[in-house]
């Protein structure tokens, strides 16, 4: 009787299909990933339990940082040149084609429109360091509302619907500035606001 040999299987397995799948998914996520453009303003948003996600596109963001500065940003690159021309014409500030192109890549800005050409001439590293005083919101020189109304008009023209207005305030920002921005928008009959927050867990009932 022959000796019974234990059946030996090789412990190595064919990983090729798994690798194929893994790389397919890596490629998919790499291509669909949209990298957030670099922000010129640091805003640390407070947390809330709201689970509504910010829409992917057509978002207008008004940022308020802790030094009461107001920044304006729009994500639709298509309408941004149109927007820049409209607001520039209103304040008779001219922009070159190069500056307009750079403006479309700008996530947000916080300078009066008169200083905007100077800001656009800077490289992105220089812009990080440049101090931006914020978009003026006082009643004599209210440029923020001009940007918002011009952007809404441009969005209507291009997409037939208004942009989603989000307010991104820093946790340490003061309430009067935020309420002032809200009031300015209410004057233009914009009554629904979306405050950008971080997600935090819902408190358990009974706590």
């Amino acid at each position, binding site marked *: 009787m022959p000796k019974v040999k234990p059946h030996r299987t090789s412990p190595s397995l064919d*990983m090729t299909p798994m*690798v194929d799948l893994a790389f397919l998914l890596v490629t998919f996520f790499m291509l669909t990933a949209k990298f957030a453009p670099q922000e010129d303003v640091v805003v640390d948003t407070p947390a809330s339990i709201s689970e509504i996600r910010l829409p992917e596109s057509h978002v207008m963001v008004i940022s308020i940082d802790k030094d009461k500065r107001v920044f304006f940003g729009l994500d639709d690159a298509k309408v941004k040149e149109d927007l820049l021309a409209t607001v520039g014409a209103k304040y008779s500030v001219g922009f070159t084609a190069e500056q307009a192109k750079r403006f479309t890549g700008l996530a947000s800005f916080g300078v009066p429109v008169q200083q905007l050409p100077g800001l656009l001439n800077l490289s992105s590293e220089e812009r990080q360091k440049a101090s931006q005083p914020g978009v003026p919101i006082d009643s004599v020189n209210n440029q923020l509302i001009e940007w918002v109304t011009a952007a809404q008009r441009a969005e209507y023209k291009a997409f037939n619907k208004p942009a989603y207005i989000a307010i991104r305030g820093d946790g340490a920002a003061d*309430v009067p500035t*935020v309420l002032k921005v809200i009031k300015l928008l209410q004057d233009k009959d914009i*009554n*629904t*606001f979306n*405050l950008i*927050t971080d997600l935090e867990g819902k408190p358990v009932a009974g706590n």
Partner: protein
Amino acid sequence: MAEIQQKADSGGGGKKRAKKMSTKIDMTPMVDLAFLLLTFFMLTSTFSKPTVMELNMPAKIRDEREKTELKASNAFTVLLGGDNKIYYYDGLLDNNVKPDLKSSDFSADGIRKVLFERKQRNPNVVVMIKPDDTSTYKNMVDILDEMNITGQKKYALMEISTNDQDLIKGSGL
């Protein structure tokens, strides 16, 4: 790792054979890297979108007659002060009526409990939120969040009046 090294042919002075290389390569490090990248891109793409909290403000009132009077029994006022302090009182503040001002905080046993109790006593309560100039935006978001947590449907964000400010100062809380 997953491959067992073939035992080296130790023939000594045997026939010289062409060395046979295995066609299999160890794919483990590559797979590790692939999954690492996969996890990275998956997490960054889905969690990068921030959340938003909706805030509806009343439309501008053009006609004074459209305004509705709020009953004092349904009113509940929350005042936000500096240093993360909360003050609250029942009813309406009038020139001759001074409501009893109490202080609270943002903890789970603080304003949340008060709001729950107030709502149980009277489900029609309307909460008026008045942030002081010294309060921060975080306080404002936190109190709006408390409204969502306690299921308070009717609330309004209002500007603080000088009477309210005097009440905080006079209370010594």
